[in-house]
């Protein structure tokens, strides 16, 4: 439902723009004075300033995207390349396994990336990769301080992403499929 809010006509004084102006000056002056007196926001919320005291990120903070493993230490990514497709700055680059490539390191998933690279210099931390991932294999994690001395160094490869990403204990879709299939067993399932 649209609610129409009537705008009150401005008085002449208000139309000179001055009252809002002065109001604005007041607000900024207030903040200025507070900072001068030492009531700085960074100090008020933390223990100190950034490089010495690392910034404590909040729960929902979205930092660098990393790949995760499941609780059994297997790569979750199946190289579906949706993140590569959706990535607005084209920071993600996946080399699929190809016909003779490495099979997945967990049963039944059939597929995992041969190489998975994220160019952290291109990444804009938008989180679309995480959103689009059907396997819950990539997450924007709390790491915000990405530095390096060369451009090459800032292209994180699969090993590094997996190592930084850690473990995400989610549902193990492929494992359950395999178990379900094994229970029915009248059809052999190619596994492992």
């Amino acid at each position: 439902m649209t609610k129409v809010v009537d705008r009150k006509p401005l008085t002449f004084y208000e139309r000179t723009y001055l009252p809002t102006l002065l109001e604005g000056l007041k607000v900024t002056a207030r903040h200025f004075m507070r900072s001068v007196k030492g009531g700085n926001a960074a100090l008020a919320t933390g223990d100190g300033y950034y490089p010495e005291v690392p910034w404590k990120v909040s729960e929902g903070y979205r930092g660098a995207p990393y790949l995760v493993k499941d609780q059994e230490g297997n790569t979750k990514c199946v190289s579906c390349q949706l993140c590569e497709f959706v990535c607005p700055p084209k920071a993600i680059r996946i080399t699929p396994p190809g016909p003779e490539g490495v099979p997945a390191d967990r049963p039944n998933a059939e597929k995992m990336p041969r190489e998975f690279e994220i160019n952290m210099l291109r990444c804009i931390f938008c989180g679309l990769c995480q959103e689009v991932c059907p396997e819950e294999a990539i997450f924007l994690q709390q790491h915000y301080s990405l530095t390096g001395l060369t451009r090459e160094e800032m292209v994180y490869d699969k090993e590094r992403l997996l190592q930084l990403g850690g473990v995400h204990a989610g549902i193990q879709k492929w494992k359950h499929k395999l178990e379900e299939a094994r229970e029915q067993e009248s059809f052999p399932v190619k596994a492992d």
Partner: protein
Amino acid sequence: MLDQLISDPTAQFVAFSTLKILVVFGVLMTFVAYAVLVERKVSAFIQDRVGPNRAVPPLVLKIPVLGKLLQSMGIFQPMADGVKFFLKEDFTPSYVRKVYFWIAPAITVIPALMTIAVIPFGSKLGGQPMVIADLNVGILYTFGIVSLGVYGIVLAGWSSNSKYPFLGGIRSSAQMISYELAMGMSVVSLFLVTGDLNLSHIVEFQANHGWLILYQPVAFVIFLVSAFAETNRLPFDLPESESELVGGYHTEYSSMKFALFFMGEYANMIASAAMMVTLFFGGWSLPFFSEPAGTLLGGLFHIGIFLAKMIALVIVFIWVRWMLPRFRYDQLMDLGWRRFIPLALANIVVTALVLAALNH
């Protein structure tokens, strides 16, 4: 020989003028550098941040208490900035028009510095008038020089040969022309009141009769807003507008050439502030301290007064920046042409009528 030279008035004038120019230039450049620091610090404080508090030369930290304090105040930041600007790669894109591209920063910064020449920044110091050039047409000189500054920006925008700078340059020229009119007309009423164009005389008038802001508040408002526009400060920074023109006219500039634009902007700001102090706030005078100084100490005190007023106005410039969003281009034009110019004209007429009535 030397005695002769010392006693020769021309030689004296040359010597003192050179000295004044050097000192004023030095002070101005220092002010420019520290205006940047003040800008950053004030901005930070307004936004609940801390601002520059890192740069410190080696060994300074060894000084107990003071070293730490200087560092946290960011006193050395301008030096670091300067060094950084000098060391940055001076990159000239292949597609620019080289001559104009190179000359533009200079054209921006020189007029900004030259404006200072006619400002009386003190009463007298050891018998010397504290103004570099005590021109009879001081204010006309100022307007003439200031209007040259726009060429630097327009040239920079045009010669960069790329879209954003070009748009920035175009905006700048329109904006400068628009507000110069309003600015020029706002001061006409001041001269009606004082009957003189010489800035030193205007200051003296104020010392004797009270500040001109009391006589001409409308002119002050117009002058103040126009000064914001002339110096490309927010809310009138359309030629730069980082968010839409990615820097506008100086998008393609780097290193020292960029630094010159930067210095030009702040020098302009300081010059505007100095001009406002001179025109509206009684220059070096205070209501209870208005006699031209006879002693050295008094002279220095007057200079101090002038600088204090100027710094206060510079801080206002910075303060306003964090309070207003950027004007839209049509709003800017509307304000200039349809509000301020008629208002300034009306102000002149009213002032003239009032003066005529009083003189009768």
